[in-house]
């Protein structure tokens, strides 16, 4: 295989991949907690669930905003084509994300049961719809979308809801649910913790089923998403790492090592995104049925000057961001305790 010498375009391909992977790993768990939210029954349990993600969800969402901004800056043609092409899907995603954010903020501000129930449903539905749409978008990118010779989207909203993208959407919901359940396990104690421990097996089974179906469907119907690994058998090690990481999750849960289960889940996500990136490279949006119209890291990119300037910005900014993100997670380590500042 030829990754070639790592030019600026390829570097930005990796940076944007890393940003979206960071987003999946971080916002993934709080979307997952949202998806599980309605399974908890008492008001206190629900408050603990929301406060488990309380201090961090906002920062997690910034990964998506920054990923979007980086995509705009590095590959404006992809940003323009995907966002205008997936118009309604993105509007729905925005509405879901807004609704969810508002629900977290406002749920516990009033004591009335109807008020809290309304926002509970909003929070959960918003989380599920967001996860689903993110998966559907990934599915369409993998499957390929019709592009004309100017690189403009030539399909319709309905055409985006094919069986494969929907399958990827459901798999994403399952993945985030499992990831979120493990995170909630880390942040809770007592009866709720034991309850979550019971659910987590169901989450794992749900995810592994989806994962197996998606893998089969990909191999059978989307062969181009396995071509590079097929041609370079040593890359299979990444797929193997992915499978081992997933298999390790129930093992760690069984031994009560929740943190290591969470790390395994994170590694599984990194490996999955790594495989996705490897198979896509150097394309960013595949054109199906006319591959010649695909947008890749060269025909969709900004100028070399901009890519270089932005790389400087990223090299200054990202280490700082990582340093204080880690410190903030450290400050808020430990089990959730409700107090008067809690949601």
């Amino acid at each position, binding site marked *: 295989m030829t990754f070639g010498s790592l030019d600026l375009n390829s570097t930005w391909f990796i940076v944007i991949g890393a940003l979206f992977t960071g987003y999946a790993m971080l916002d993934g768990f709080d979307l997952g907690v949202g998806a599980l939210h309605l399974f908890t029954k008492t008001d206190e349990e629900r408050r603990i669930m929301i406060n488990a993600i*309380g*201090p961090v969800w*906002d*920062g997690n*969402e*910034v990964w998506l*905003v*920054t990923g*979007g*901004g*980086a995509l*705009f*800056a*590095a590959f*404006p*043609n992809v*940003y*323009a*084509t995907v*966002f*205008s*092409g997936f*118009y*309604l899907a*993105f*509007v*729905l995603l*925005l*509405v879901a*994300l*807004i*609704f969810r*954010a*508002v629900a977290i*903020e*406002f749920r516990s*501000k009033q004591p009335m049961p109807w008020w809290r129930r309304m926002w509970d449903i909003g929070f959960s539905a918003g989380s599920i719809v967001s996860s689903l749409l993110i998966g559907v978008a990934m599915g369409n990118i993998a499957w390929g979308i019709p592009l004309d010779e*100017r690189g*403009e*989207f030539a399909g319709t*909203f309905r055409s985006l809801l094919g069986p494969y993208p929907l399958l990827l959407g459901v798999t994403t919901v399952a993945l985030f649910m499992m990831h979120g359940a493990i995170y909630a396990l880390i942040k809770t104690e007592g009866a709720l913790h034991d309850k979550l421990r019971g659910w987590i097996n169901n989450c794992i089974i749900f995810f592994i089923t989806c994962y197996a179906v998606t893998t089969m469907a990909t191999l059978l119907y989307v062969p181009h998403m396995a071509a590079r690994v097929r041609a370079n058998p040593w890359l299979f090690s990444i797929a193997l790492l992915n499978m081992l990481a997933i298999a390790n999750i129930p093992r760690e849960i069984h031994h009560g090592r929740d943190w290591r289960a969470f790390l395994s889940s994170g590694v599984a996500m990194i490996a999955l995104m790594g495989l996705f990136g490897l198979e896509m490279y150097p394309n960013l949006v595949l054109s199906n049925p006319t591959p010649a119209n695909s947008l890749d890291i060269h025909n969709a990119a*900004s*100028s070399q*000057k*901009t890519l270089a*300037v*932005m790389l400087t*910005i*990223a090299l200054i*900014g*990202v280490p700082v*961001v990582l340093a*204080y*993100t880690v410190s*903030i997670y450290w*400050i*808020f380590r430990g089990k959730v305790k409700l*107090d*008067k*500042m809690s949601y």
Partner: protein
Amino acid sequence: MDVLALSRIQFALTAGIHYLYPPLSIGLGVMLVVMEGLWLKTHLPIYHQMARFWTKVFALTFSIGVATGIVLEFEFGTNWATYSRYVGDVFGSALAAEGIFAFFLESGFLAVLLFGWNRVSRPVHFFATCMVCLGAHFSAIWIVVANSWMQTPAGFHIVGEGMKARAEITDFWAMVFNPSSMDRLFHTLCGAWQAGAFLVVSVSAWYLLRGKHDQFARGSLRLGLLFGLIASLLQLVSGHSSAQGVARHQPVKLAAFEGLYETASNAPLALFGWVDEKHERLVGPRIPGLLSFLAHNDASQPVVGLREAAIDPKDRPPVNLAFQLFHLMVAVGFGMILVSALGLLYFRRGSFFERRWVLWLLVLSVLGPQIGNQAGWFAAEVGRQPWIVQGLLRTSEGLSAVVKADTVLTAIILFSAIYLLLFSVFVYLLNDKIHHGPDETDLVPSGKLALPERRKP
């Protein structure tokens, strides 16, 4: 309606509503730094109580600001794809810098600001407050830089032709410090400081009217009025400098702001009036020579009129709309100076309670900066029309090629519904917080906050 009109309505709606909140966060952010700083310095619990109460209000404005802001970032791609391709090389880098430098900083340290009172020491908490405030200011910097580049493009060249043409950066710093960016940034920040300051003033005056939380209200009012007066005076300086920049770099916009059709030395400044666009004339009282003097520091210098600056009426913005918005903004700007000076005067004399109308005026003052900010932002954007990037790309050319009118209409309806919900919830909860008032227990710090300060050996 066509896609162009609908997309413009959608952008105006979403940007206008979004812009109600970030200025409040920026202004309140500064207030929080001042309050908490005073607490650290003086150890007076009243400042702790103030910091705690206003932090809650800050959190409310911030969360709605974030929620409405994500929409804008995606909207460039959804509705203005051609524009995005055209400016991505320039605009995108500012937006990405905003994400990396501003949003992460704000949202990360906001967690400590809100939930960290009992988890970190006082200086660390104060540091977090400063970082949130700094992050809020950073976000203003990058977005205003990007927008200013659309007003006065610099540091770029055009590559390609026809549909493939796009702007590429040649000089990053020339792009960042384009002719209007620093003036407009300062102007925007002053407006934001005013918004935060007068929110504090308004709520405090309300408490005084009701005879509640007396000590808290007086303390907050004093800080709010002082900060409000400083920001309003700075706004005057910045507004003047900004207008001179417009005169130099965007003569069409200035002529539209003043309804000036004929190029004239000794050009008059309109106090208020109505532009009759059909007959190309302005009806209203004018002060001769003042516009020339303000624009060029010399009354005898000519100011370019619309007939010369944009010969074809198609190249002109909607003149009367720009005129009215601009004059509204200026009127509000002077009004805020008066209000804050008046408030401070009576505050010094301590004669508030005999003059309830002053308190009422202060309660209503919160609307001033909001009206001024909206009018000013709309004036800046309407005045640039018909260009989306001044002189390079027309707004009508920036649209997404594949998006249909009914799709945009659906989005407008969805966004309107959810924004209406957001706004009513915001008002409801703000009202609730104000009724609940500052927490009396905050006057007695507990937990980690109650620990004695470490003394130097």
